[in-house]
């Protein structure tokens, strides 16, 4: 128990430790510590606790792969910002094919339309939109444009209605 010291003195001991006391008050508290065992003990305890906390905060790593962690951030940033139309690519194609079919004259526009309509994968590809039906499930979407793969990850507990844990069905 700290009998002799009132609350104000105790708080001032702490402020001394934190470098928050004006010079004159700090000097007074240092004198107190030198002559009062209780004050010295409390000061030492506060100091030890501070040292323990300063040195031993638990280091932690984000438990997700770099791309996965970033993909949600990027998606939310883009959702909040107005998006520019990816026009330049199309215009480049349009003007190329227009030049290529310049000989056919009036059919150049049709050819360009043909190209845009029929060539797979040249259109801007929108991201998957997931509506989750279950209250305790959230989803994250990641798309790799190069490989043509879209991942929708459901943050579902491992014991869930989809996973079997021990897969048993055969391949057809």
């Amino acid at each position, binding site marked *: 128990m700290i009998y002799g010291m009132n609350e104000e003195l105790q708080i001032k001991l702490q402020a001394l430790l934190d470098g928050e006391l004006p010079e004159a008050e700090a000097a007074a508290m240092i004198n107190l510590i030198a002559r009062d065992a209780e004050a010295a003990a409390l000061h030492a305890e506060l100091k030890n606790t501070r040292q323990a906390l300063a040195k031993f905060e638990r280091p932690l790593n984000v438990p997700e792969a770099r791309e996965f962690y970033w993909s949600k951030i990027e998606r939310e940033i883009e959702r909040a910002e107005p998006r520019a139309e990816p026009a330049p690519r199309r215009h480049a194609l349009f003007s190329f094919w227009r030049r290529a079919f310049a000989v056919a004259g009036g059919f150049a526009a049709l050819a360009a339309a043909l190209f845009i309509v029929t060539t797979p994968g040249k259109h801007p590809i929108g991201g998957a939109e997931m509506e989750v*039906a279950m209250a305790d499930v959230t989803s994250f979407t990641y798309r790799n444009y*190069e*490989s043509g793969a*879209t991942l929708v990850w459901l943050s579902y507990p491992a014991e869930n209605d989809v996973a079997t844990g021990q897969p048993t069905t055969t391949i057809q």
Partner: protein
Amino acid sequence: MNLKNIFTAAAFLSVFVAVSAAAAAEMKLEAQLIWGTSEVKSPNPKHRPVDADVQHKLASLPLKWSHFFEENRLLFAVADAATGKVTLSDRCAVEVKNLGNNRVEVLLFGKGKEVGKVTQHLPRGEILVLAGNAPGESAWLVTLKRME
């Protein structure tokens, strides 16, 4: 306008019409139920590793598992504006609606309950992967690949 130009115009038009019709035609899809794991070998002797293309696509995604095994694979087709449903296991099914213009709406069912719905642009050769954690630090994946 001479005969040569008329024939050229007709050729373009017929190709245009044929291709437009193809775009509106049925979608050929491959649905797979896959088990993802860090283990090199699956304990289930009926499992086999996924094919190279699926492996390559899964490897391009930020998944921590490096080995994927087919539990089930089903090929099916869905006509324009139609819906097809396939059951991949006693727990898992997917329903796919062909929305036209290379778009699909996919419903995932777990134990008969709807888990979620995804609307996705899915051109030929591309894959949509729905995935989540499974027991034993593994993952379940339901893939839907648009076939050529």
